[in-house]
Structures are given as C-alpha cells and as structure tokens.
C-alpha cells in the first residue's frame, strides 16, 4: 500500500491516506498531502479542521488510525521524536519551547551538538568552552538577530524573541523540513512583520517548510502552496491565488467567520 520510494523522490514529505479517529470523532479522513522539496507549504482551515492533528501525525506525536507518512523517502511509523528530528525534521511549537534557565548560546549549542554528535554521545570530559560548536551557535543566533544578547538567560526574552530563539534552535540542525505551528500567534504587528521577513530568508536558503497559520497575511506572504483543511479533509490545494478564489474555500471560511 505504501507508495514506492522512487515515485515520490521529489517530495520531501508525503502523507498518504492518513486518517485519525479519536473515539467517534473523525479528526482526519484520507488526507493526502505532498510537500515538495524547497517549498513553503501552508496548512489553513477553520478551527477544528484537523491542522494540528495532521502536524502531530507528521511529528510522530500521534499515531494515525490508517495511512502512512513518508519523510524524505523513509516511512515514519513508531519513530520517537528524537529519531524523527535526527532524520532532518524540526518543529517550532505553538508556545515557544526553549530552555528558559540557560543562556541563548547554550540554547542553540544543544541542537548543534545533536546535529554533530548524534542523539547520544558520552563526551562527558570534553571541554565545552572553546568548542567550535559555540561559534556555529553564535552564527545561528546572528541569523535570527539575537547575537547581541546571546549570554543572557532565555527566560528574560520577550515573547517574540523567544520565538526567534526557538527558530534558531530549530534551524541549528540545518533540518530538511521545518514545521511551524502558528509561528506568529500572539505577536504584535511589527513582530509579525519581522517574523515573515525572517521566515522568507530561511526559506530562500532552500529549507522546506510546512506552516500552520491563522493569519492570512502571513500565509499569503510566504506560501508557495496552500492546502485547505475542513472537517478532516483537504478541500482545496494550490497556489495562493487559486486558493483565494476557490468557492469551496470561501464557503468553508464564510460558514464560520468572515475574513
């Protein structure tokens, strides 16, 4: 049943007939999602459409009732979060997930170490200071514009900066695929603008992204492809202009609220 690896070689991520039931509730039914390499692919839809469930299926947090997920040619089934991450997938959470008591530099050193040394290495007597990983982490922090405060503790950052830090944690792996769960949720206008700029810059480096987002300004500013989920199924897919004019999409959204 699983698609042949060769046929999807251009796809970074392939969700194949994914269904998920929670008791009697069908959260996802037969979802096929193909994310092409190097694209920014957004998932939109009204509340309860199944966006977060789909994202959790992709990261292995939820096991689908039916169907399979293939990432970069490798089927993901019963793979733990750190293994998925080591395969090259990183996730930005809805509420910033960082290491609050540690310095920004240490925050970014950890994923850099995971990328260099693998999921486990017994390097307990290695010198931490002066490790080349530190300058690498510094560069990564510079990419998101947090280099100047790299020695302060992460918990003192503003919400927007925490999000930037989390982004730095995620890109420090140089992942093939970056998943973002509402990257601008709770942000002020100017913070949203700078986040869009930052994400655009990251995507230009060739990183594939899947974004779940409510803010249509963000979605239309960034996306190459948009998939619209409603009641657990994908009802439309295409580039931003196609989706904007699609009557089914308008109906799905108008049924709930006017944008």
């Amino acid at each position, binding site marked *: 049943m699983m698609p042949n690896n060769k046929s999807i070689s251009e796809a970074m991520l392939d969700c194949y007939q994914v269904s998920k039931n929670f008791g009697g509730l069908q959260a996802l039914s037969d979802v096929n999602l193909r994310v092409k390499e190097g694209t920014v692919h957004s998932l939109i839809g009204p509340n309860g459409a199944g966006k977060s469930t789909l994202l959790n299926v992709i990261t292995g947090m939820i096991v689908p009732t039916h169907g399979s997920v293939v990432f970069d040619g490798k089927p993901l089934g019963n793979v733990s979060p750190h293994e998925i991450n080591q395969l090259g997938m990183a996730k930005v959470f809805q509420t910033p*997930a960082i290491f609050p008591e540690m310095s920004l530099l240490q925050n970014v050193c950890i994923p850099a170490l995971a990328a260099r040394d693998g999921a486990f290495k017994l390097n307990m007597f*290695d010198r931490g200071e002066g490790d080349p*990983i530190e300058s690498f982490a510094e560069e990564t922090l510079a990419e998101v514009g947090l280099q100047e405060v790299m020695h302060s503790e992460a918990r003192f950052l503003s919400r927007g900066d925490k999000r930037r830090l989390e982004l730095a944690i995620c890109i420090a792996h140089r992942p093939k695929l970056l998943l973002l769960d509402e990257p601008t949720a709770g942000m002020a206008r100017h913070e949203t603008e700078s986040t869009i700029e930052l994400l655009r810059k990251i995507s230009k480096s060739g990183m594939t992204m899947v974004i779940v987002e409510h803010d249509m300004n963000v979605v239309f500013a960034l996306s190459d492809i948009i998939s619209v989920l409603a009641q657990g199924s994908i009802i439309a897919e295409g580039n931003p202009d196609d989706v904007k004019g699609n009557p089914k999409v308008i109906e799905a959204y108008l049924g709930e609220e006017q944008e």
Partner: protein
Amino acid sequence: MNKSTSIFSKYPIPIFSLVVLSFPFWFEYIGGYPGLDTKILIWALMALGFDILLGFTGYLSFGHAIFFGVSAYATGLMLKHFSPEIIPAMFIAVIVGTIMAFAVGYLTMKRSGIYFSILTLAFGEMLNSAALSTLQDITGGDNGLTIPDVKPVLFGIRMDGLSMYFLAAAILILGYYLARRIATSPFGLILKAIKSNQERLEYTGIDVQKYKLGGFVISAIYASIAGSLMVIYEPYVATEYLHWSTSGELVIMSVMGGVGTLVGPMIGAAFMLYFENVLSVPLGEEWLLVLGIIFMAIVIFLPGGFMEGLARIKKRYFNKSNKEEK
C-alpha cells in the same frame, strides 16, 4: 567570604584540595574528633555524585542508599572472604554498584517527577528487606555484616587514621575535578537541559533516555565508591547503609547545601555530620528538633541553600567590587 569565593571561582581545584587536605589538622579546634573528618569526606563524595543527578537533571532519587549499601556489602564480603587488600574489594564493589545502577536506572528513569522518586524508594526498600530476610545468610541480617579481625590495607599499608583520611581525600578531590569537568562538558549541558525543558530536548534530536540513564549511573558510581570507602574506614556493614533513611539524609544534605552547585551538597554533608556528632552534644536530646528547624528555615528562606546564603552575603557586603557585572 567574598574574597574566598571569588578566588575560589578562579582556582577551584587547588583551593578545594587545600581545604580538604588541611581539614584534619584544624578540625579538632572546632570540636571535631579524629575519624569524623573521614566520614565527612565519604558523605561529601556521595552528596557530590548525587548533585550530578538532582542538580543537573532535576531527578530526585530516594534510592541512592541502594548503591551505597550494595557496594558496602560487596566491599565487606570481599574484605572478609577474599583479601584485606582494598583495590580488588573496591573494584568489585563499584562494578556491582554500576550494574545495579543500570538495572534500577533503566526501570525507573522511564518515569519522571514524583513517580521516579517513589519507584527508586520502592526499589531501595525491596533490597533492604531482601538483605534483612532472604539474603541474611550472606549479609548478616539485622546484625549487619561483621568483619572481625580484618585490617584493610592498600598495597600493604594499613588504612586507618590519617592514611585512611588521605585516601578518601584523594578520591574526593579527583571526584570533584571530574564532576566539574562533567558540568562544563557538552554532556553536562544536555543533562542540565533535561531539567530545563525535556520535551524541547526530545524534539531537538537528543536521546533523552540515554542521557538520563548516563547521569543516573555516574551519580550511582559516586555513591558506590562512597559505600565502599565507608566499609574500608570502618570494617563493618551497618544495616542503615541500605535503609531509605540514608537516601533521605542525602537529600537533606543536598537541599541544605544548595542543589546544582556541586560544592553546596558537600558543605551540606559536612554541616549535617558536624551537627549530628558535635553540636548534638551540647544540644542534648533536642538536637534533631533543632536540625529540623534549621532545615525548614533554609527551605523557606534560602531555597538555594548555604550557597545562596553565601551569594547573598557577597552581594550585600561586597557589592562595590563587582558593580561592573550588572
């Protein structure tokens, strides 16, 4: 106080060594007596290792008596039946303790928070009751393991008095040096990240389970060495060594001294033994009550323990000297 702490951060190992090596020569002037100094070092070693687990990963074990006790029994049996030479005894004791740590750690580290603590406590109690019942032919049951007429030696040198003290001191200084190395290593950084945000760490490509187990085993090895030294110091295995109260005292020492600071738990251990053995004399029957009040006062007013107290004193009275820091 400020002077010593700031110099300390510059030359931690030499200053630590100086304090430890000179300790028996001034200890009697503050009411100490020979032998108690060695005991303090042994407990300090265990508290130091415990801090690698509790202080770094945040996992509170109530079962560290397992490693102290099992290793003590192993050492006792080796001294009694094999040879009074301590190297084979310590070697076997640490091997046994390490195997124990892998088994207990593997089973308990799957849970976190209170569940982990309770599981370790349950394991400890199981072993304790096994030592007192099923295994009493080997362990000596309620009488403890007596080792009559055995004088432990290191390469033929009798280990008692000062020679025993300096053996413990050498091991503690080495242990402190290694603990500091671990603290500043990438491995230590990841252990501290477990305490900070375990979920993020998993989604950062780190096999958290293995790191946790690593931290647990390292701290258990410290406890095993301490347990072994205790029997070499005093060739007798008391039943309390495996009892949960040993684990409990270790937790109290760590909290009083300052969790996560490495030096703090060692100071906590020294304070507690000093209090138990020296200050308890003038205080009489009520010494435990006084200790309880001190402990509560520290938890309520100084959650960072003695080390936080030192930091506050430094900040208050020596603020001028480090203004440029903030």
